[in-house]
């Protein structure tokens, strides 16, 4: 803890095989790490459990969006066709939930989709173009065929030499220090 260098973002190591990185992630989870991540070119099936991640919070914003959309659709059609400029068409009521239902339905889906789309960006803290990881020379291969475990310096367990040794014991190759 005392030797913790503020200018270090963390340590990274690479893996070449999915099964290696998967089992290494389980060990990092079991060691009780909190601030760490596994960077992969594609989502690995079961990695959320291997990392001990909770369920993604994105659905909350989807629900919020959907409810907002439905209410917006109701207010929109009620205000326009019943309150501000009442219209009688086809002997239908000024407003009911039935005749504008396709509009309410589409508004619900539209706003729920916005909630989901922006929820993904909000919970992933994106867009962010200046992350220290981008300075790692071997990080570019992570979007191709390499897997990388990163232990971050802000984790209370982080200690430069010990963490490096820990990654080595997991079977990681190319262990590098990431500077902020």
């Amino acid at each position, binding site marked *: 803890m005392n030797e913790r260098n503020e200018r270090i973002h963390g340590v990274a190591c690479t893996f070449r095989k999915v099964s290696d990185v998967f089992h290494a992630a389980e060990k990092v989870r079991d060691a009780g790490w909190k601030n760490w991540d596994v960077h992969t070119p594609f989502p690995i*099936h*079961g990695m959320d459990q291997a990392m001990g991640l909770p369920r993604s919070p994105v659905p909350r914003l989807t629900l919020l969006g959907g409810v907002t959309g439905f209410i917006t659709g109701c207010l929109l059609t009620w205000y326009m066709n019943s309150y501000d400029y009442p219209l009688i068409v086809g002997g239908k009521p000024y407003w009911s939930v039935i005749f504008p239902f396709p509009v309410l339905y589409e508004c619900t889906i539209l706003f729920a989709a916005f909630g989901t789309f922006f929820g993904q960006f909000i919970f992933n803290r994106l867009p962010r173009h200046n992350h220290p990881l981008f300075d790692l020379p071997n990080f570019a291969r992570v979007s191709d065929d390499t897997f990388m475990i990163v232990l971050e310096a802000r984790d209370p367990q982080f200690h430069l030499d010990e963490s490096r040794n820990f990654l080595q014991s997991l079977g990681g190759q190319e262990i590098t220090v990431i500077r902020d």
Partner: protein
Amino acid sequence: MAHAHDSSSERPAILDKVRPAELPRSPLILNNRGFHWITDKVCGIVEEETPLWWKIMFGVALFVASFTFIGLGYLVSTGTGTWGLRSPVGWGWAIVNFVFWVGIGHAGTLISAILCLLRQKWRTSINRAAEAMTIFAVCCAGLFPLFHVGRVWFGWWLLPLPNQNGIWPQFRSPLEWDVFAVSTYFTVSTLFWYMGMIPDLGAIRDRATTWWRKAFYSLLAMGWRGGNRQWSNFEMAYLLLAGLSTPLVLSVHTIVSFDFAVSNVPGWHTTIFPPYFVAGAIFSGFAMVLTLMLPLRAIYRLHDVINQYHIDNMCKIILATGTMVGYAYATEFFIAAYSGNVYEKFAFVNRAFGQYWWAYWIMVSCNVITPQLFWFKKVRENHSLVWIICLFVNVGMWFERFVITCTSLANDYLPSSWGYYSPTIVDIFTFFGTFGFFSVLFLLFIRFLPLLPMAELKMVAPQADPHAH
């Protein structure tokens, strides 16, 4: 009963000898290609020097697209009378083309959303291109109703925005529902398409060598880092968008069919329209996916990722939906006869044997008879033949919309108000040009964006299983 009890208590000896049959799954990626091969293949398409065929095709597509814009320019400067619309046929080619293009789009959403929910892994190879097709098809479709309003500069009156007349859209009208359905469809499809592309844009960014490529793809990739914490939210959002797109796509063509079904015109006023339109949309859209993907597969040598298994599956979906459409044609006739309504009966007899009989029989032969060839494995393996059959399906589905729209309006109730509709040269040019407009957008997509979803392809590769040895 007693006998059954005896036999269940004693385990037959043969059970220890039999082994469950091995049912190998068809591999989705042939020749055991690795992750790096997939990255190279897909990124290579956007990284290579612009091929000559692309430049030629792009020039041709621009030329063809100019027909649409010249046609629309002439329409706006002269009036909608240039479109061959006159009483009693007030909805001619414009609506036919609109329904045709929207329908094409639906296969893209079926592949990206419905097959995702059904965990059909084979969808990964074709989903990106099919989603792009959806968006570009909706762009083409939107042009027609937008210009059909006549004074296109008032097109914004369709939206719930305050205007100087102090009036609002009328939400009891299916045409207004359509505005909401199609614009939501376009927006959600674009969000879904773009979000799915972010990891692949990141992969192209990481390989970029020139500064402008780096800047362009960095901007689009939003700083994607591929951390599993990001993937976890991404996958959840992707699944939710698939779940939202599924009811959306079904609702869009349902609402498009309401444009017809809510009216009182014989031949339109039927409850079968929503499911029948949705099946037809998926049918025509899959035909368009194959029309586009077979040449691309040959040009870019994608045989390992789009293999016979994918083509077989698509052919079978065309066969299934084509048969559903044929069944719907038969049901319409049966209901017309069974209803006892003379106008309804006449509408259908008139479709098959009236003044538009030729359109009706083109429709039946292309949509019901040609896809039946897909029962045969030899046909599905002959890709030139598959491509030709898909062209027939596209033609047939255009004629289906023509038959529905024009025959019903041309001969409805009073014989004194019957008429005959024919398109003008402006109609023909405008429709012809949309194929160019579509191709321009699609060619730009091929050139600058990842044609196949790399991350999803890697996910279905056998090496991606963390428990594999």
